[in-house]
C-alpha cells in the first residue's frame, strides 16, 4: 500500500510524495492525482511572476519572482571538485 502526502513549503504545495512508509498528513491517492493534475494545468503567469498553489485553499496565487543573481558557476564546479578530492573521490567517477 502506498501512502501519499503533499510537500508543503511556506504555505504552498510544491510536490506530491508517495511511500510505503506511513506519511504524516497523508492524503488519498485520488487527492494526490487531483493535485498532480492541478499542477499540470497551472495558469501561465506574466513575465516576472509565477503562480504558486496555496496549501490552505488549493487555489493559485500570483507571486512575483525574485531577481536572479549572477553566479560564478566555474567557482562552484571548482569547489565541488575540491570537496571530492578532499574525500579521496576522483572527479567524474
Amino acid at each position, binding site marked *: 500500500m502506498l501512502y501519499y*502526502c503533499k*510537500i*508543503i*513549503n511556506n504555505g504552498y504545495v*510544491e*510536490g*506530491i*510524495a*508517495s*511511500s*510505503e*512508509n506511513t*506519511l*504524516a498528513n497523508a492524503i488519498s491517492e485520488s487527492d494526490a492525482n487531483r493535485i*498532480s493534475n492541478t*499542477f*499540470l*494545468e*497551472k495558469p*501561465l*503567469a*506574466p*513575465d*516576472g*511572476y*509565477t503562480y*504558486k*498553489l496555496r496549501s490552505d485553499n488549493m487555489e493559485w496565487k500570483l507571486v512575483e*519572482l*525574485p*531577481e*536572479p*543573481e549572477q*553566479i560564478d558557476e566555474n567557482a*562552484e564546479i571548482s569547489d*565541488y571538485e575540491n*570537496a*571530492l578530492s578532499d*574525500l*579521496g*573521490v576522483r572527479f*567524474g567517477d
Partner: protein
Amino acid sequence: MADYLIQDTTLDAIANAINAKTGGSSAMTPAQMVTAIGTISGGGAQTYSGDIIYQNQIIDEMTIPVDVTNKLFIARVTCVESGVVDNGVVVPDVGYVTPHGDRGNVVILAGRIFSQELCYTQRYRYTASVPDETVGDSNASYYYGNDGARLSYVNITDITNYTTNIKIKTQNASRKWCRPGLYFKFHYEVVTF
C-alpha cells in the same frame, strides 16, 4: 554506539559508526556509505523510502517527508524521472545521461538534525534534453537564459525546521532547480539511527 555518534559529528565518525553496524572496521568512502543505506538492518536503524514528484513549479528547496527529529540520519536522493510539461501532459526525457553517466542528480547527506552539521554532499550536474523554448512557459528561461532546462547543483546549505522533515536547499537561492514546464521524480532513501 549512540554516545559515540552524539559526541563526534564528523563524517568519518558517522561512517565508522555505520561501518561498525555492518561489520567493518575502517571508515567507508561516501560510495560505500550509500551502499550501507541498503544493507543496514536492526540495531535501531529505521529505513524509509519513497518518491517525490515536482512539476511545473519553481522550487529551490527539496523536502523529504521523513521525521528526523533528534536523530542521526543518512539520506540519498536520486532523480529517477524527468521531463517537460507540454500542454498539460508530462513528456518524459529519454535517451540521455549526464556527463557522469548518471541518470540524474544524486544527493547524499549525513548529519544530525539538531546540530545542523552537514558532512558530505555529492552533486551532479543535471541537464535536461530539451531547449528552453519547448517548455511552454515564459518563466522557464527566467533564471538560465538560453542555457536549457537545467537542474542546478543541489547542495545542502541549510537544514531547516528541526522538528519535522529533511529539507535540502540549493546552493544559491536564485537557482531554482525545478521550473515551470519541467517535471522531476525523485526517489529518496533515508536511514535514521
